């Protein structure tokens, strides 16, 4: 088992280099890719709050790898490879040493995790640092040494400097402090140190952005508050449906099984065998619960990648529980799962790196179209900008703005994407008399659940008058 595990790990590491995605196919990915050339928050490359450690690493890799998207994906891969160490050390805490490599390989080969790590998104890096952070918390629980206590504070800063939305994991630090029953003075000291660590990256970002950063931060925060209770509620799902989607669709079906029936069956089998034995220490239950609520209320449920931390921690304890007492049968099931995950995961990253994303297909196809025309989109426009297409395109959310922008192109054909159409429908506009489908572009919906499939419509107003 150990031998197989190590072979699998090496294979996964290789795939992080070979199949790092060269495409910046979504708004966020373009933000990050552009940041490697010019770090400029005002121009939204990247967007607030700056993701400094992620971009910094990407910049370092970029000096060897020409394609910025690929550079970021490789940086993710490098950090994820380093995360093998904390995963192994944690595994050793919970299972016999001979099975620690198996747990490590199983966690590293989670197919959906592999897929996200190979994208130029900060999730991959953040997830890797999360492992280091969780391991440092585990150590801090049982040690009074100052350096052991300081390590989680520092890693928490690194993690937030990669992805601010992992902030709920800060509860782990509070839990350690509470468990160790520190006196007020010590608490105050550690809190100050924790804040100071956070300031490392905040100051670095501030240094590049100048005083503008604070205004950017405020307008970002204020934007959230004005939005809360406003526009967001238009497509708000009922509460129970949200929970159901989060648990079954996002965590289990996408996160663990990568939408593969075979992997899903393996997990079900594994769960059936270990159902009664699953244990999880309270630190991890607390982390999971906090992050779950955060994901439920404050994260975009359309993007399953946001729940990855839950997937990896739950999977870890599922594997640990299964291997706590071993039988030949159980080992066989684990081995099958390990190999399946690796094969399906590798295929996934390969496809992601070689198949043209829908946004790219759209750009290249419209480049061939007869002019004049204008294309109205949602976030796709950012990718078109990145690819420097030669035709006019614009992002439009409201029907009012659409009419206004359209007025600037009186003699051009007007195309809209399905996201625009759905947006208008949500605003109560009857779009049916105007639209006629032109073409559909498709890539993987697992890689990009929102823009993995794009339908373009032509918008005609004359017909109404006839």
């Amino acid at each position, binding site marked *: 088992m150990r031998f197989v595990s190590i072979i699998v790990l090496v294979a996964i590491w290789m795939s992080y280099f070979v199949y790092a995605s060269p495409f910046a196919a979504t708004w966020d990915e373009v933000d990050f890719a552009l940041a490697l050339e010019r770090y400029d928050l005002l121009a939204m490359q990247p967007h607030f709050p700056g993701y400094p450690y992620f971009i910094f690493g990407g910049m370092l890799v970029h000096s060897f790898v020409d394609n910025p998207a690929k550079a970021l994906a490789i940086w993710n891969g490098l950090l994820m490879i380093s995360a093998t160490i904390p995963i192994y050390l944690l595994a050793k805490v919970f299972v016999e040493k001979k099975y620690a490599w198996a747990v490590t390989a199983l966690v590293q080969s989670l197919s959906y995790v592999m897929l996200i790590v190979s994208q130029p998104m900060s999730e991959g890096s953040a997830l890797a640092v999360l492992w280091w952070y969780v391991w440092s918390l585990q150590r801090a629980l049982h040690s009074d040494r100052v350096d052991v206590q300081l390590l989680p504070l520092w890693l928490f800063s690194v993690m937030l400097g990669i992805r601010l939305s992992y902030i709920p994991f800060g509860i782990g630090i509070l839990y350690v402090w*509470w468990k160790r029953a520190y006196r007020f003075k010590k608490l105050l000291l550690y809190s100050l140190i924790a804040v100071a660590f956070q300031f490392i990256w905040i100051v670095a970002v501030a240094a590049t952005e100048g005083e503008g950063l604070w205004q950017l931060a405020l307008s970002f925060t204020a934007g959230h508050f004005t939005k809360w209770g406003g526009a967001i509620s238009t497509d708000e799902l009922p509460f129970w449906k949200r929970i159901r989607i989060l648990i079954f669709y996002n965590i289990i079906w996408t996160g663990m099984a990568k939408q593969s029936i075979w992997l899903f069956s393996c997990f079900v089998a594994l769960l059936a065998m270990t159902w009664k034995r699953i244990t999880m220490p309270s630190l991890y239950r607390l982390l999971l619960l906090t992050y779950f609520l955060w994901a439920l209320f404050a994260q975009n449920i359309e993007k399953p990648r946001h729940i990855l931390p839950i997937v990896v921690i739950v999977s870890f304890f599922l594997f640990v529980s299964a291997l706590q007492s071993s039988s030949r049968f159980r080992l066989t099931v684990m081995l099958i799962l390990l190999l399946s995950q690796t094969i399906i995961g590798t295929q996934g990253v390969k496809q992601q790196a070689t198949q043209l994303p829908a946004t790219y297909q759209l750009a290249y196809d419209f480049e061939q179209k007869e002019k004049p025309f204008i294309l109205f989109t949602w976030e796709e426009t950012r990718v078109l900008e990145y690819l420097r297409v030669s035709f006019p395109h614009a992002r439009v959310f409201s029907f009012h703005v659409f009419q206004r922008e359209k007025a600037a192109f009186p003699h051009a054909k007007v195309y809209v994407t399905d996201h625009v159409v759905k947006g208008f429908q949500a605003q109560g506009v009857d779009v049916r008399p105007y639209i006629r489908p032109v073409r559909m572009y498709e890539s993987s919906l697992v890689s990009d659940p929102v823009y993995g499939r794009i339908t373009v419509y032509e918008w005609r107003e004359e017909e109404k008058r006839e």
Partner: protein
Amino acid sequence: MKKCLFFCMLMILVFTSAPISSFAYSYGDPNEEAVAEAYKEMIAKVQEKKFDEVKAIYETVQKEIDMHMGPEPSAIILEAIDEKDGDTVVSAMQKVLVLNVARRLENVEKNFDNYDTSKRLLAKAFATYKALSPIVQQKDAELDEKLKQQFDIALQSLGNPGLFGVGKKESNIDQFKESKRTILEALQDQFELENIETGHFTEEDLDRLAAAKKKEWTDLSDVKNWIPIIAIVMVIVAVVVYAVRKRK
């Protein structure tokens, strides 16, 4: 465990008050330029022949235009609006936009060593150009492409402080002047302006700019805008106090 839950709940309260959605960062776009936005609104209203509304929109930016481009543009535009002469309104507004690009670029040059300011002003110049871009594009698509490139080069010429010292780039004022000249000459030619010397640049202009900045973004002097921050701080303080009390 109870205490844990309480912690949890409070943390959740803090976090949920700042939801991160996919469009969050499109809020409060600091690169927007008021004159350009007004122009876009106006052409839509002109097409609908709602001249009252055109006038109302123009008045929101009239002061700024009067201050920087003199009284002539307003005289022409307001008269055209009164006469319901849509074509003149649109073409005069386009000229105003060209003047606005000129004024912004002029100020970039004056603040060239102040990266913070110059970058923002250049973004505004570009936002203004983007409103004009459809017209240039329809007449001469290649020129539009070239101008966009020039804006990009101008941005490069401002330099960049980099991140943790990586990606640092020096500024280059000659390169900027070159781009500025190319852009302004092309625009002057395209929109048939005799003169783009706006000439109204004084120290007072920079003061006004600073004052305007306040309004364009989150207004710090408005008490209401502090509420979220205060709320977050209060909750955090409450959690800490509660935890300390409990311990004792």
